[in-house]
């Protein structure tokens, strides 16, 4: 598939979607017209599921994905269509409940340089020691008793 042919194909599809009175994406026609791209998309979907299970596979696949111009073009069509389908405003990412910031403060905040310095300034070594005790209570030490047998057991289960 040449680059020029790609562009024409893409232009036609875009024109059909954008100029239409009601935005529509005829998946069945597109599937019949471009069976190779359809197969590529389907297999990509399967690969995505696998990627979620293993980060290493993702890196390798992304490197090889770059030259697949046809696949990228097909993906672009789907994205454009999807944007037009959902309509303005609806595609904006929804805020998570409680805003984009995590609702709870990280317990690790109590061991920052500023937090520890303030504790000392306000209450001297006693206050600093109390804060360290609190840090031990909240952050560590880590659970012990993890033997090699336990680890292997976890891996097998």
């Amino acid at each position, binding site marked *: 598939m040449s680059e020029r042919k790609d562009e024409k194909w893409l232009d036609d599809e875009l024109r059909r979607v954008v100029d239409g009175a009601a935005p529509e994406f005829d998946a069945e026609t597109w599937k019949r017209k471009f069976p190779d791209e359809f197969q590529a998309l389907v297999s990509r979907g399967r690969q995505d599921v696998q990627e979620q299970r293993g980060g290493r596979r993702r890196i390798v696949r992304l490197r090889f994905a770059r030259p697949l111009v046809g696949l990228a073009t097909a993906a672009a069509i789907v994205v454009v269509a999807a944007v037009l389908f959902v309509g303005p405003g609806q595609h904006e990412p929804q805020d998570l409940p409680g805003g984009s910031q995590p609702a709870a403060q990280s317990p*690790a905040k109590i*061991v*920052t340089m500023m937090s520890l310095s303030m504790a*000392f300034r306000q209450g001297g070594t006693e206050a600093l020691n109390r804060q*360290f005790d609190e*840090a*031990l209570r909240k*952050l560590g030490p880590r659970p012990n*008793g993890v033997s090699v047998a336990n680890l292997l057991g976890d891996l097998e289960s």
Partner: protein
Amino acid sequence: MRLCVKKKILATVVLLYLASSLASVAQAYPPDPDNAALVYYQAFLLCEQQDEEARDALSEFAKGERAVSDEIREHVGRCQAAVESGTAAAGMQHCNWGLRYSQGFSMQLPHLAPVRLLHWIILSDARLHAADGDYRTAFDRCLDVRRMAQHVGDDTLISMLVAVALDRSANARIRDFLSDSKADVETLQWLKDQMADMSGKLPSARRPMGYEREIAMEIMRPEKRDQLVKVLEGTGAEITEEQLAMADEDFLARNRAYYSEFLTELQTALGAPGGYEQRYRRLNELVEQMARASNTDTSATLTATFAPGLAKIYNQQVLAEANANVTQAAVDICIIRATTGTLPQKLPAGLPKDPFSGRDFEYEREDNGFVLRCRARDLVKDTVHEYSLPAQ
């Protein structure tokens, strides 16, 4: 003659073979890490998970406030892997905790709380060895904690405060064991040599002050305004829109200049000739002046927030020095007692001095031991420290 040459050749070949065999054994696995921090982190992971009650019991035992019990023995026994890793780390030369200075005041110091726990465990182990009559190992554990204190070091003022607290704690246990009067002359002499090697290596406030200055100056730049607001909010400060609007380029420039000048004055006072009292009073005076200025002069606003409580920090440093010096002096006195069977009539010459007064410690013999006393007041605690070493 020919036979002799043959023998020499044969011997050389055998030696070369042995040397190459040993080298290949040595190269069979990678070397241990040369960064003590990595081994300390392993020790932290090997510390037994404890509830608050168990932790309190351990720290009280380590401080000598609780008697030996089966429960403590069992608990310390379960922490032996941590003790082994911790003491191995303490014996290493180089220690880099991997602190992320680029995070400025948000930099996390997660190693400090576990370091305190590890030092309690190691000092508890030391007490158990002393209780069993193994003073050499007991002293060695205390020296390991002192080495650990040097590793905690003076990367930041907070690290330095933890380091001097650890060092004081270890010195207090050494004095406890000296009081038992059961250590032999050879062990005491060994202890004296070890302590002489550590002399003068206590963390001081001067180096971390330089780092803190850089960190604070960096955050007072206009491009770091958001970070500054976050740090200020982290201190519990409520920042209004009005105040935010006020924190313009000019405000930050004035604050940077004020902070820089103030820190220079603090550093000068810290390094100025003179004794403890003079330095402490000057540091306090500077802090009070700045606090008063911050009420009326907005150039001092950020300095009032970020400037370290240096007078108190300096006091902790001097107190740790007093503890180290008095312990060294006590070891010398105990060597005399172990050699002659009696305590010296007066303080031997040439012993480390009381840093509060700059003079020799006051020495007093008692019926059941001796006391070493500072000759000037600790101006924060308003007390004269004295260190009693009763014979058990």
